[in-house]
């Protein structure tokens, strides 16, 4: 009986499943075939024996992280920072997308949209030089400005409490232009008749934004958020290691799982250990996605992942 409905469903919508087939094959080949490598997380990987031949060692690869006493601290930082990133970056992306949408002058729109996209291309290594130029204790532009106003300079690079905010600002700066492109493409697809009807009813610009644009953007925002939640246990190494580096003074608020593991395995490059922690990060992220997806399904009609 079960087989019957499977075949009948597929044949009824055969073109749809056919269209999906090449993509499915792609993932089967390039993602699922190599996936058996995950077992390295539970093995004492030895180059000479390969993946299948290396001996099992249970959960030993997880030990260095979980018995360290710092596991909780870096995990907390990772989740906190990533949550801040999700909230603020999404906010600014939507904010600027809506603003740009209101702009009438096409030339201004095109130029500023291109300019806003530029930060996406700047590597954090280069940005860190600029950050140094701003926040240097003696030579930094900010402290110099503070001094000229009669205030004492701030020791930026030894004040951990300031850095979550600084990192959020930097990340929002980098990703706003990118997000504007995504959201603008969505906004542009909205049916104008909604807006026309609203204008006839006497709605002002702000009301249009809050009652039409934002609700219509919800599915996009939700799906982007769920996808980001999946990675919430993964620290943004490029950002954090590029900007903070080995400045241990700031670790209490900025050290994330990935930078911690990077330092631990920098000189030994043990494949088993790095795979193990990566597996844990993935599993946790996956669980969170299942939860947030369920919530999305419950409270919103659109936008859930599956």
């Amino acid at each position, binding site marked *: 009986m079960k087989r019957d409905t499977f075949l009948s469903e597929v044949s009824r919508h055969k073109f749809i499943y056919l269209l999906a087939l090449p993509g499915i094959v792609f993932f089967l080949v390039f993602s699922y075939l190599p996936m058996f490598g995950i077992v390295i997380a539970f093995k004492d990987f030895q*180059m000479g024996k390969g993946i299948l031949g290396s001996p099992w060692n249970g959960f030993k690869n997880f030990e260095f992280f979980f018995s360290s006493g710092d596991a909780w601290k870096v995990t907390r930082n990772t989740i906190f920072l990533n949550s801040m990133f999700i909230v603020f970056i999404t906010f600014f992306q939507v904010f600027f997308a809506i603003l740009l949408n209101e702009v009438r002058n096409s030339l201004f729109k095109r130029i500023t949209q291109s300019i806003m996209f530029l930060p996406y291309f700047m590597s954090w290594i280069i940005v860190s*030089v600029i950050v140094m130029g701003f926040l240097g204790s003696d030579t930094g532009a900010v402290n110099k400005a503070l001094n000229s106003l009669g205030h004492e300079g701030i020791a930026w*690079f030894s004040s951990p409490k300031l850095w979550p905010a600084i990192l959020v600002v930097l990340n929002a700066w980098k990703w706003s232009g990118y997000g504007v492109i995504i959201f603008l493409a969505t906004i542009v697809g909205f049916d104008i008749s909604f807006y026309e009807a609203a204008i006839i009813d006497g709605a002002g610009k702000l009301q249009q934004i809050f009652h039409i644009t934002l609700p219509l953007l919800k599915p996009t925002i939700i799906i982007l958020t769920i996808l980001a939640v999946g990675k919430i246990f993964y620290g943004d190494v490029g950002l954090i290691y590029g900007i903070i580096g080995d*400045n*241990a003074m700031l670790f209490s608020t900025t050290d994330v799982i990935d930078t911690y593991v990077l330092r*631990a*395995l*920098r000189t*030994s*490059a043990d494949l088993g250990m790095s795979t193990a922690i990566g597996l844990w990060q993935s599993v946790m992220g996956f669980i969170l996605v299942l939860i947030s997806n369920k919530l999305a399904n419950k409270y919103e009609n659109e936008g859930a992942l599956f």
Partner: protein
Amino acid sequence: MKRYFLKIIAVCMILTMTVSMMAACGKKGGENNQVSSTTEVGTAAAAAETTAQPLKEYKITALFPGDTPLDFDKVIAQAEKQVKDSLNVKLDFQFIPWADYGNKVMVKMTAGDDLDLHLNAPWLHMNQMISNKMIQPWDDLLAKNGTEVLKAFPEQMIKSNKFNGEIWGIPLGNVIAAAKTSLYAIRGDLREKYGMSPIQSFDQLEQYFLKVKENEQGMVPATWNASQFSLFLTTDANFYQFGQNNANVLIPFNADGSVGEIKPIYEYQGFINMVTMLHKWYKQGIIDKDVMAQKDGKGAYLSGKAAYSNVDFVEEIKLQGAVPGAKMEKADVHPDVKPVSDFKMWNFLCLNAKCKDTERVTHWYNWIFEDQSHYDLLQYGIKDKHWVDTGAGTYDLPAGVDATNNYTFPGYVLLWNPNFDRISAQSTQAMKDENAFCKDSANYTQSALTGFTPDYEPIKNEIAKVGAIWAETILVMAAGVVDPEQGLAIAKRKLEAAGYLKIVEEAQKQVSAFAAAK
């Protein structure tokens, strides 16, 4: 119409893709092209060959870090031509950017790709390669077919660079030992300006720094990259580092090269003295306030913004470009102490255990050292095109050749050798002196740990745990930022919780075992 056209293109593409993928699956991965040569073999170098048979062409594959030098193909073509009749090898040398080299080598070796030669080192994954038998020792091969190689090296060098008694990698160095660790590069012109005599102790160094702070606005006396384990490690002149860069035990040497007491780093007096001094300097404003965030300490010195760095004389010209009249000078704070050395090199040339023709590879490597001209070809390029011989073991650029647009081969990946290497004719006297010093074993006291091969496998968990917190416990003191009064106690607590004592025990165990076995 447009849409149908699009659809047709799409279908064609998918078909092409599928077909080519299937074709690729059917093809055999073509590695070594075995092309039979018709020329007779008559080699003078391979004296062991008794039967003259046409040698099939063999491709020597190698992977190195760096960038492919300009004109590399021309140099290789020359090199291949010179051995066409005797060895008939093709040289397939690939370069990978430094940052990615370690990963690529590991993946290739694990996957079993054809890779005869590559650079490796204890600071990379040579120890794993040895214990997993991914590479093979050179001893027998050199004895049979590599006599010139053995002759090329000072005896000391080969002996001191064995791993567990065998030559697992050809040591690559153009000197036989590192320069003294008690050398600190300062600004000689400033020292003279203050009327100070050459600096010979930490106290005098401190005087120098204070004078810089007083007199030079806009300069910070000392700054360095926080990520490097401090260049100010210990007040002792000589020591050995057991462990990795970010998880180790410092073992001091006595003047005769014997091993001193092995203690945890936070109980080791040399380290304690050093970080106490560094903290004093930090409070005095000698050390950059932002030193923990510094990412380009050398750049600061070379642009005249800092009065100290761990640069080499090679870069002095940059300093002079930024600050005319500046002079780089290395102060030796332990002028009367001879450096202790185990003569271990930083880089090794490793031979794949699965190499298909080890004799040929060894023969070819031997060829390099048969004649100075062979070494010169690979290291410096085509004579009179890329370099000129200026006699007495020196070389220079030909007239009109732009240095940034010339053949530059990173010798330390393949063939560096103290006896064959040339010095640039444009070296400063300081560079020449340093080079000569590092080539003379009389300048060094032999370390009791010569030939010692540490094994970090049993403590790899501890190294990982300690490595993760090294920056916040030890590096902060080594940067002078944290007061050792509290810092040492905190370090002790945290490091012991991370299993540091096991590393110390292991160090004691292995060192005593090595001493006993001698």
